[in-house]
C-alpha cells in the first residue's frame, strides 16, 4: 500500500491567486542592479520600522511574507535565505520554495544567507518549527511575482500576449512563434515594470522542485572545513573575550582581584560589565542568568583561557529578585528566589506538589465522581531533570562597535529581538546596528536567548576594538539556560468493561508546568481533569527543542501504554478508539489537534512497522504525539545484548503537510529520534548548592554513535496541506516509544528520566 493513506481536501483555502498589494501602504521593492539585472525585494509596512502613526493605520492582517532574489543579466539567480540556519536546513529548503515558483533550475541557483533586515524580511527567527510554515506563502509569492514580471517583459519584447508565454528552467518560451530567451535577457526590463497586483501560484501537482530531495547548499563547505560558524569569524585587529561567571545559581559578583591575570601574556584588559542598563525592561529573549560579569580580553583564545583561571574572585549571595519583563508585548512579573538550590530538594518539592490538588486548567464531565465508582484506577508519576542544550558550537558572538555604528555577526536564533536589545544598551539607533547571521553549530532553543550578543557589544564598545566573545564548554553548560525539570502525575479510571471513563493529569515543574491541557487524550474521554503547578527557582530556564512537549509527550504516552495494558488492549488500537471518539463526538469545547491526522500517523506506522507481527527477541514500543502543528507516530524495536538494551530500529510516520525537501526532512526526523532516545535514556543536569554537577561531556552524558538506533525508517503522509513544523515534532514522542519498549524488554517500567544513569566511559 502506498503512503497515501487518505486523500483529503486541504483545509486551508486553495491558493492560486495571491494579492501582492493589500493596500497602497504595502509595496514591493524592485531595483535595477548596476551592470544590469533585477533585484526584487518584498517589503511590507508591517515589517518596516514604522512611526507610531503608521502603526495605528495598519490593517490587522498582513501577509507573512518576505523573499528576495536577484537575477543577473546572464540569467544567474541568487536567492536569499531569510531565516537563521541552525541545522534544520532552511537555508536550502526556503530558497527551494522561491525557485519553484520562479521556474528556475535549482542546480544553478546561488543561495546566500540574508542579514537581519526588518525592512525587507519578516520573522527572521529560528524557533517553534515555524520557518517553513510561516514563510511558505511569502516565499512562493517572491518567486511567482518575479516570474510574472519576467513574462510581462518578454510579452513586450516579443509583442505577444503574456498568456501565451510559458516558463521553464530560467527560460521564457513563446511556443507558437518558436521563440525563447533566458531570464537574464529581460531581467533588466522586468525590473522596470509595475509590481503586479495579483500573481498566480502553481498548483501543487505542478511542483518540480518542492517535494524533490535537494542537497544541503552548504555541504561542500562543511566537509572541507570552510569558515561558516560564529566561532570561525576572524577580523584584522580582533581580540578574544571571555567571561568569568558566578560558579553557582544564587551567587553574584562581590569583588575581583585581577592583578595576576592582567600580567599574563597577551592579555589586554580585565574589567566588569553590566549586560543591561539599570532601567531596561528585558524581553523574553533577554533572559539570562548573570548580568554583572568579569571580562578578560586578550589576543588569543588560549591566553585568555589561562588568564581567566588566574582571576581571584569573591562571590556573595544574590538577593531574591522580582522584576518585570516584556513578554511579547505583555508586561509580566518574574520572580527569582534567593538561595542555593539542589536537585534532591527539588525532587522532594515536586513530589509534594504532585500529591495535592492544584490549579484546575480544564475539566470535562465529573471526573471526581467517576474515579470513585471506577472498577479500576491506575496512578503513575513521571519526572525528568534539567537539560543543557549543549549545542556543539558553544555560545559566542563577534562585535565591532564604533563611535556611531555597530556590526555584530554570529549565531543567534532571534536577531531582530537582539538588535533592539543591543542598540538600546549601546545607545545607538536601530538603523546603526547591523546584525549578520552565521550558520549555527546547533540551536535547540539555546540561541533564542542572545545575551551573548549584547555582552559582545558591550565589551567591544569598552575596548574600542572588534572582539569575539567565546564561551568555554564549561561556561556554556553551567550558566544556563536549561530545559526545566518536570513532573507529571496521572490517573486513569476504567469501568468493568475496561473502557477509559476518566483521565486526570496534574503536571508541573521548576519553574513552569509542561501541561498542554487541550491535547490528546482530552477530547476523547468523557471525564477529564487537568491541573498545573510550578515552583519558583533561580535556575534559568528557557525553550528547549519542543518546549514542554519534550517531557509531557513521553510521560503521557508511557502512561497510555500502561492503561492500554491494564485494559487488555493493543496500544495502537486503544489510542485509535479514543481518537475515533474525539473525531466523531469530541468532548469539551476546544481540542487543539485534528483527530483524523493523529489517527493517520498511527495507522501508517502500524502498517509500515508490521505492528502485530512480533519477532522473537524484538521488543516494541509505540508512541504518537502532536505538537508544533505536526503529527508523529513512532515504533521502536529493542533487543537486549549483553544485558544492555539496544535500539535496533525506529519506524516513524509523520504528517507535516507538504514536504519541501524529503531527504532533508528525513534527516531531521532521524535526528529527532536519536536526540529523544539520547536525552530520555542518558542525559540530565543536576545541582548541588546551586552548582551544576556536570560541566562538560565527561560527566554530562550525550548519546553516542554506538547507542543510536541501528536503523531509522521515516514515512511521510502524502499531503497537499500547506507545510507545518518538523524541527521539533519528531523529538518528543520517541521518549514514550523508548519507555514502552524498555518495559517489554526488561519487564520494568521506567518513570524517571534519564532511564540509565551510569557514567559514560569514553575518550
Amino acid at each position, binding site marked *: 500500500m502506498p503512503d497515501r493513506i487518505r486523500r483529503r481536501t486541504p483545509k486551508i483555502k486553495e491558493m492560486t491567486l495571491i494579492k501582492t498589494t493589500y493596500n497602497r501602504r504595502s509595496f514591493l521593492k524592485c531595483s535595477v542592479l548596476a551592470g544590469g539585472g533585477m533585484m526584487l525585494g518584498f517589503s511590507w509596512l508591517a515589517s518596516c520600522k514604522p512611526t507610531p502613526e503608521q502603526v495605528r493605520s495598519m490593517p490587522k492582517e498582513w501577509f507573512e511574507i518576505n523573499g528576495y532574489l536577484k537575477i543577473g543579466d546572464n540569467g544567474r539567480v541568487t536567492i536569499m535565505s531569510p531565516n537563521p540556519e*541552525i*541545522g*534544520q*536546513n532552511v537555508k536550502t529548503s526556503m530558497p527551494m520554495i522561491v525557485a519553484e515558483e520562479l521556474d528556475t533550475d535549482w542546480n544553478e541557483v546561488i543561495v546566500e544567507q540574508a542579514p537581519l533586515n526588518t525592512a525587507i524580511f519578516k520573522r527572521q527567527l529560528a524557533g517553534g518549527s515555524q520557518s517553513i510554515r510561516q514563510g511558505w506563502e511569502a516565499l512562493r509569492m517572491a518567486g511567482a511575482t518575479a516570474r510574472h514580471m519576467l513574462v510581462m517583459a518578454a510579452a513586450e519584447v516579443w509583442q505577444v500576449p503574456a498568456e501565451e508565454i510559458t516558463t521553464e528552467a530560467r527560460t521564457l518560451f513563446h511556443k507558437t512563434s518558436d521563440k525563447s530567451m533566458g531570464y537574464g535577457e529581460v531581467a533588466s526590463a522586468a525590473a522596470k515594470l509595475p509590481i503586479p497586483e495579483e500573481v498566480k501560484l502553481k498548483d501543487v501537482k505542478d511542483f518540480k522542485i518542492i517535494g524533490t530531495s535537494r*542537497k*544541503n547548499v*552548504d*555541504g*561542500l563547505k*562543511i*566537509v*572541507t*572545513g*570552510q*569558515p*561558516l*560558524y560564529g*566561532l*570561525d569569524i*576572524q577580523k584584522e585587529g580582533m581580540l578574544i573575550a571571555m567571561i568569568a561567571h558566578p560558579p553557582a545559581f544564587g551567587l553574584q559578583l562581590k569583588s575581583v582581584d585581577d592583578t595576576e591575570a592582567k600580567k599574563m*601574556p597577551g592579555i589586554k584588559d580585565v574589567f566588569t560589565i553590566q549586560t543591561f542598563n539599570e532601567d531596561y525592561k528585558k524581553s523574553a529573549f533577554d533572559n539570562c542568568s548573570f548580568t554583572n560579569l568579569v571580562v578578560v580580553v586578550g589576543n*588569543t*583564545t*588560549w*591566553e585568555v583561557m589561562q588568564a581567566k583561571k588566574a582571576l581571584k574572585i569573591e562571590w556573595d549571595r544574590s538577593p531574591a529578585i522580582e522584576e518585570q519583563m516584556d513578554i511579547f508585548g505583555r508586561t509580566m512579573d518574574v520572580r527569582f528566589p534567593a538561595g542555593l538550590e539542589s536537585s534532591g530538594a527539588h525532587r522532594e518539592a515536586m513530589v509534594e506538589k504532585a500529591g495535592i490538588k492544584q490549579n484546575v486548567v480544564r475539566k470535562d464531565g465529573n471526573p471526581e465522581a467517576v474515579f470513585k465508582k471506577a472498577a479500576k484506577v491506575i496512578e503513575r508519576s513521571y519526572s525528568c531533570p534539567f537539560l543543557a542544550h*549543549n*549545542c*556543539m*558550537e*558553544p555560545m559566542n558572538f563577534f562585535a565591532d562597535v564604533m563611535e556611531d555604528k555597530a556590526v555584530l555577526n554570529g549565531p543567534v536564533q532571534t536577531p531582530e529581538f537582539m538588535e533592539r536589545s543591543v542598540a538600546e544598551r549601546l545607545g545607538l539607533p536601530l538603523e546603526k546596528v547591523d546584525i549578520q547571521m552565521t*550558520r*549555527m*553549530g*546547533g*540551536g*535547540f532553543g539555546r540561541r533564542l536567548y542572545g545575551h551573548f550578543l549584547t555582552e559582545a557589544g558591550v565589551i567591544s564598545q569598552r575596548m574600542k576594538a572588534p572582539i569575539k566573545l567565546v564561551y*568555554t*564548554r564549561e561556561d556554556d553548560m553551567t550558566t544556563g539556560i536549561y530545559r526545566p525539570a518536570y513532573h507529571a502525575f496521572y490517573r486513569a479510571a476504567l469501568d468493568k468493561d475496561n473502557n477509559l471513563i476518566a483521565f486526570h493529569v496534574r503536571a508541573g515543574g521548576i519553574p513552569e508546568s509542561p501541561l498542554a491541557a487541550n491535547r490528546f487524550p482530552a477530547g476523547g474521554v468523557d471525564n477529564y481533569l487537568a491541573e498545573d503547578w510550578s515552583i519558583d527557582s533561580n535556575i534559568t530556564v528557557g525553550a528547549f527543542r519542543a518546549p514542554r512537549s519534550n517531557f509531557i509527550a513521553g510521560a503521557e504516552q508511557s502512561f497510555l501504554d500502561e492503561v492500554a495494558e491494564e485494559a487488555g488492549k493493543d496500544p495502537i488500537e486503544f489510542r485509535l478508539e479514543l481518537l475515533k471518539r474525539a473525531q466523531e463526538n469530541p468532548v469539551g469545547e476546544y481540542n487543539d489537534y485534528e483527530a483524523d491526522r493523529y489517527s493517520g500517523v498511527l495507522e501508517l506506522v502500524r502498517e509500515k512497522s508490521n505492528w502485530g507481527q512480533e519477532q522473537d527477541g524484538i521488543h516494541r514500543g509505540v508512541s504518537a504525539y502532536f505538537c508544533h502543528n505536526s503529527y508523529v507516530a513512532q515504533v521502536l524495536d529493542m533487543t537486549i545484548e549483553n544485558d544492555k538494551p539496544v535500539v535496533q530500529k525506529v519506524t516513524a510516520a509523520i504528517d507535516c503537510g507538504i514536504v519541501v525537501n524529503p*531527504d*532533508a526532512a528525513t*534527516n531531521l526526523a*532521524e*535526528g*529527532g529520534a*536519536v*536526540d529523544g532516545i539520547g536525552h530520555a535514556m542518558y542525559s540530565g543536569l543536576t545541582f548541588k548548592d546551586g552548582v551544576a554537577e556536570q560541566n*562538560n*561531556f*565527561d560527566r554530562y552524558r*550525550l*548519546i*553516542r*554513535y*554506538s547507542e*543510536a*538506533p*541501528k536503523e*531509522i525508517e521515516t514515512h511521510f503522509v502524502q499531503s497537499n496541506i500547506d507545510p507545518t513544523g518538523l524541527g521539533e515534532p519528531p523529538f518528543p514522542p520517541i521518549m514514550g516509544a523508548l519507555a514502552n519498549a524498555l518495559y517489554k524488554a526488561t519487564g520494568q517500567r521506567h518513570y524517571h528520566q534519564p532511564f540509565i544513569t551510569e557514567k559514560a566511559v*569514553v*575518550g
Partner: protein
Amino acid sequence: MANFNLNINGKKQQIDLDPTTPMLWVLRDHFKLVGTKYGCGISQCGACTIHLGDNAVRSCQLPVSAVGEQAITTIEGLSENGDHPVQKAWLEEDVYQCGYCQAGQIMNASAFLKSNPNPTDEQIETAMNGNICRCGTYTRIKKAIKKAAAHIENI
C-alpha cells in the same frame, strides 16, 4: 615562549608561542585554519580531530610542543577539492544537520578507514564512539562510512 617548526597540510610553518598551547588553538587562532572545531576542550567530543601522521588525535589535548616532526593534516588539507572518498560519501549521504561536528567525524573516519579499509559494524562503532553529534546524524554517518569504505576498496 618557544619556536616551533610545523608541517601543516604539507606546508612548513614557523611559530613562536607558549609551548603548552594546544594545536587546536594554534590552528584556529594562529594559522586561521578554523575547520578544526572547539567542542569541549577535554577530548570528549572529537570535534577537534586532526591527523598526526596517520593517526586521528584530539587537537585540544595536543600541545604544540608534542608535535615535533610529525605531519599534521587538518580537514582543509584532507584533499585538494573536497574529493577524499570520505568527503564524497558525506556529500552523497547529505549527512550533516548543523554540520559543526562533521569535520571531526570525517577526520576520525578517514584515519580509521586508512588503518582498516574493510571494517565491521562493531569496529565502526568502537572507532566513532568518541565523536559526538548533537543533531543525531549517527545513522547517516554509518551509511557514509560504509559507502566510503566501498569507494576505497574500488580504488
